[in-house]
């Protein structure tokens, strides 16, 4: 069953699809860079790794690419588990 939750709360190694991104809260510069790195509605994501100790930043697979982002940015994305 599909559940909607924020990307920063998605457990590691869980396949999900981005349903909504709160671009307004991210600001133009960060939005553009996240788009450049492939974050967009409908894109498949999977959190792969978290940095030691603080668990922040996280490495996320976006499409076929792996991208490092901080949890603060992941918080702006709503995903749905597959």
């Amino acid at each position, binding site marked *: 069953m599909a559940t909607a939750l924020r990307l920063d709360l998605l457990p590691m190694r869980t396949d999900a699809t981005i349903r909504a991104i709160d671009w307004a809260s991210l600001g133009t510069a960060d939005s553009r860079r996240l788009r450049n*790195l492939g974050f967009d509605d409908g894109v498949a994501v999977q959190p792969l790794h*978290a940095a030691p100790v603080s668990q922040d930043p996280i*490495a996320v*697979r976006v499409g076929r*690419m792996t991208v490092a*982002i901080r949890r603060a940015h992941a918080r702006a994305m709503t995903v749905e588990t597959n």
Partner: protein
Amino acid sequence: MNPMPLIAVVGNPNAGKSALFNMLTGARQKVGNYPGVTVERKAGRFSFPDGRPVELVDLPGSYSLDPASPDEAVTRDVVLGKQAGERLPDGLLVVLDATNLDNHLRFALELIDLGHPAVVALNMVDLARRDGLEISAERLSQALGVPVVETVAVRRIGKDAIAEALASEVLTRGEVKSTAPHDPRSLSTRARAIAATATLSQKPAAAAAGWLDRVALNPVAGPLIFAGIMFLMFQAVFAWSEAPVALIEGGLLAMQAGATSLLPDGVLRSLVVDGILGGVGAVVVFLPQILILFFFILLLEASGYMVRAAFLMDRLMARVGLSGHAFIPLLSSFACAIPGIMATRTIADPKDRLTTILIAPLMTCSARLPVYAVIIAAFIPATAVGPGIGLQGLVLFGLYAMGILGAMGVALILRRTVARGAKTGFMMEMPKYQIPRVGDIALGLWQRATIFLKRAGGIILVSTIVLWALLSFPQPKPGQSALDSSIAGKLATGLATVVEPIGFNREIALALIPAMAAREVAVSALATVYSIEETDEDKQSQGLIERLRGRWPLPTALAFLMWFVFAPQCLSTVAVTRRETNGWKWPAFMLAYLFGLAYLAAGATFWLATWAGL
């Protein structure tokens, strides 16, 4: 006559653009700079199948024509024909990572829409196959409307096909259309649709090799591996360089002996032996160490590990208000602050970038090594303080650590004062791991070596000769020391009053002046000063180390080391900071705060050491 056609190589970061550029041009490359900006211009030659020469220029990797950094702005300006110092390219070679089509096609579409004659290099097709991806170059070509050539740049596959495709495209050159900026959403949608059309079959991406990251980013193993690599790197800089350094030293001694016997005693012999060979030689000796450091940095970048290191370091750097982005420029600064400061161009946040630029000179660059090595060899006994740990190595480690701690403290203060700004983020693509190609690493090292030797032959040679002249003239009257009578001696007497409180003597004051050109000149300057000052025939053959040992008290030597941890004795760093920050404000600030810190740190060391009775 028409100039030869110019082809710009463009693509996303990590698409294998540089490897492709190396494949096409071989070692025939020229590294320069675009006027007014410090973005490197890398150009090379290759030829069309009919033998006509073509100029190829490698543009900085970008994600889009809407630039997020100064680097990306150059890429945009070149392809639009707006970059000073570059004509409008006659064609584009667009590099695509076959394993990452839906992401990389976005930029490719933007470029193709410009209307230049263009060829797409579908690179890394071998890795795509390994990941179970089957991509049709034919379908991709139909969808994009330009020829698509499969390449494996690291294995030199696809060179002839690229040459053929480029030749036929450039010959049928059309007018360049100017297009309105794209809506990023429609671009993404188009890119994904085209990627889906061109992809014949694929396995789920999760099947792609991810086990390396499971180890490298493991919460326990990851930091240990990182620490191990850093330790190995700095260990290697000293352990591996012993033999080649000895070889260069031997060669220099032989040359000095040869020159001494060939030239009659007098001004010319003094210039060649004391000035040129002694001065420049003292610096060239450190080429092996610099190259070893660059070897590791090139290896870490080419293999894909560098971004993992940045990932692991992000949190620590966040504590002082920076991000993992700053890690790569700062690590490069251990080799040299100039490429380090230039590498900050990839940092999008301006305050984050400014802080990184300002603290980059605190990373112990390779130019400090000659200074540290000579002083440590002269004053720190080679005793063991533990199994496998020597006192000399420990002192050196301490100097590196002082630089890092100093940088962290300064960053913390700057981010709360002059470089205050919003909390920065950390967003980075983590490239696939790759086994670096030996040829690409060798070419990178060769380029570093030539830059260093040109510097030794240029700025260092000139400052050494000027110093030698200032030291040698006017010639001393009988009974007067060479230093006392010389112009330089008189200059240094003035500066000496300023640095005497921190334990520096007049010879040091003298060496600090030309060392503004480059830190390592301090060594050659000291060598020249003491060599000219030496009147005792028996001691003429003494090396700098023996000479220093008899002349400096230990507190002075320690203060001298501490001075070089902080002092911004490098005009090139100041110049590059001025260019990167567009003005004199920040380089002036950098000079002031670093000299201030250097004076305080050297002074405190001298007073403490004297008080402790060392």
